[in-house]
């Protein structure tokens, strides 16, 4: 774990990526809710920011997230053609 060494973390507490997610109100945010209702377990690294549409995600949001320490940025929108 190169990154863990770089950040000085010990093996017992492995490096965990921090992922900032921009989820649209319609498909992805509701899908994440549905995962909850269905109790589908997943990794706790993601931090969701809700926007009305993935079209609202300014490229600067992504750069800003990386600049402030995000290890990954995930953008979730609707299936192409399913615009709300």
């Amino acid at each position, binding site marked *: 774990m190169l990154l863990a060494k770089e950040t000085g973390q010990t093996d017992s507490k492995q490096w965990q990526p921090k992922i900032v997610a921009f989820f649209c109100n*319609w498909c992805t945010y509701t899908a994440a809710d549905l995962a909850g209702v269905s109790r589908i377990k997943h990794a706790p690294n993601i931090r969701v920011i809700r926007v009305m549409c993935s079209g*609202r995600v300014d490229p600067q949001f992504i750069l800003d997230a990386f600049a402030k320490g995000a290890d990954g940025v995930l953008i979730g929108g609707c299936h192409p053609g399913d615009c709300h």
Partner: protein
Amino acid sequence: MSKTNGKIRIGFYICHCGTNIAGTVDVQKVVDYASTLPNVVVSKHYKYMCSDPGQEMIQKDIKEQELNRVVVAACSPFLHERTFRNATSQAGLNQFYFQMVNTREQNAWVHLDPEASTDKAMDLVRSAISRVVFHKPLEQKTVPIKPDVLVVGGGIAGIHASLTLANAGKKVYLVERVPTIGGHMAMFDKTFPTLDCAACILTPKMSAVKNHPNITMWTYSEVEKVEGYVGNFKVKVKRKPRYIIDDLCVGCLDCIEACVYKEPRFHDEFNQGLSKRKPVYMPFPQATPQLVVIDPETCIWFKTGKCKQTCVESCERKAVDLNQQATYKEIEVGTIIVATGFKPFDASKVYYYGYGTYPNVYTALEVERLINASGPTSGEVIMRDGSTPKSIAIVHCVGSRDKNTNLWCSRVCCLYSLKLAHLLKEHTHADIYNFYIDIRTPGKLMDEFYTRMAEEGVKFIRGRVADIYPDTSDEEHRRLVVKAEDTLIREIIKVPVDMVVLSTGLVPRDDANDVRRLFNITCSTEGFFIERHPKLAPVNTFTDGIFLAGCCQGPKDIPDTVAQAGAAAAEALALIDLGYIELEPNTAFIVEEECSGCKSCVPLCPYSAISYNEEKKKANINEALCKGCGTCVASCPSGSIKQNLFEDEEIYSEIDGILNYNIYEEAVCC
């Protein structure tokens, strides 16, 4: 003197939701942490924030502590954002000074590690607390609701919803794809557990739909396009050519008699192919409307262009029009009820049950027609080989509760299997064997019905059928052997029978995905449409103004379908009678001083809400057309478009909030 003194005073609350949240997230730790954050003056946890005492706690604090911002960490905003906004506004604070943190659906319910879950909650709480500072007081706008309703699907769900709405004085458009309303229920013989005949309870309702002055019934029609939003939908309906002029046809059936095909020879959909029809046909004797239809797939005129057109000649009223074209109707409605129904599972997919191979293997729906007095055999159980069965096996769970086909229980099969057992016994006095996994008979009078059937001498064998094959000891090879493990006596048994009935499950219609797209609603991976909340909003969808009824939402029996259709109608009525809807004030607006008039936003708007003002040389957003997607905001090169509730500062502060706390702070510093 006021405590606020122009300062931000945030109240933070986290909900235990019983143990739903508190079982995973350390709420005390989150509360302690939140109290250290800037601007937070109140930080509390409570068992059920959405309850009255929870809401009152917020309101009391708003007044006594002079809070001017509220953050609640609880369930999804889809569930209780409105609840807490209302509580906020009732205490005299603008409701948009509220922010919610999703700590249940997207946290406690999906993570196993309490520490990671608590860390995540703290990150998101910090994010909300830094965001809410930038919130502005906003006003909700209202738009009027069009009072007319579109009901899609003319089965019992659509019929009941239409009648309820029409009886309340609302104008209803009922659109049905096939030439008659009635749906699957019209095909059933009797209904469990009361054994009253399906036609006797359904056909009066069908006729009431047709005669109701408030219902416009369009059969053999399909919804082509849906635009707009709650209160103001524009819908385009295609009326397929029936090749019969509706107003002239009286349903005398002379044209059917006159058809050049002397004998019916095409698959009769209504009777599941157990009888034949002509290219010109009446779907079934009680079809509503009583109009014949010409099927261009089988009519020789449409296939070859050559026919004597005896049907045209025979009609004294000149109702047959072979040149008829599809017509399109455009309607404006405020609400839509989707009741598009189900499809029976295709039994041939479970190949080892031999459906389609052995003629005496039937599906349950075929048996419904076979025992129906107006069915292909006038109610006599005469099988495809001409014989009457003396022993019958009913195989439960075909296409249900099976990892090879569908995982779900179709809910009605046990009961309709019991019903068919009773009816087949009544008609044939045959020995009846039910092969089941579990007998599931919940509901009023249902288990009593099961007991009755057992007392009537219907045999029950617990075991999933493994194979069905011809009985070689039977010289005529008519009999079939049903092989299963009787799990109660732990033995493999082989039961020779004359007839096999496959109790097929309920599956979504093939085009569920297209319908979902058309109405902008969601469906599960199986294809059943998803309700807004499984318990508290069972007929709503995630699209406001669109409601669900019947089996398109999931398998259910007739009583539940009717109840759900009534509920969908009531939900539509509630909207219509209020007369208006409140819109989320998340629209975009132009900061004119900063707009350079570059026009780059104009073509990007999916709703054509942006125009260019030549005089001012600025872009202009029509608030009524803006749906608040924010695409223009993200694209504006000069940052001169803003979106209410999603302003740049609000989103940047959320990003800041999430990231400026390092969840491995300790590890990093050493």
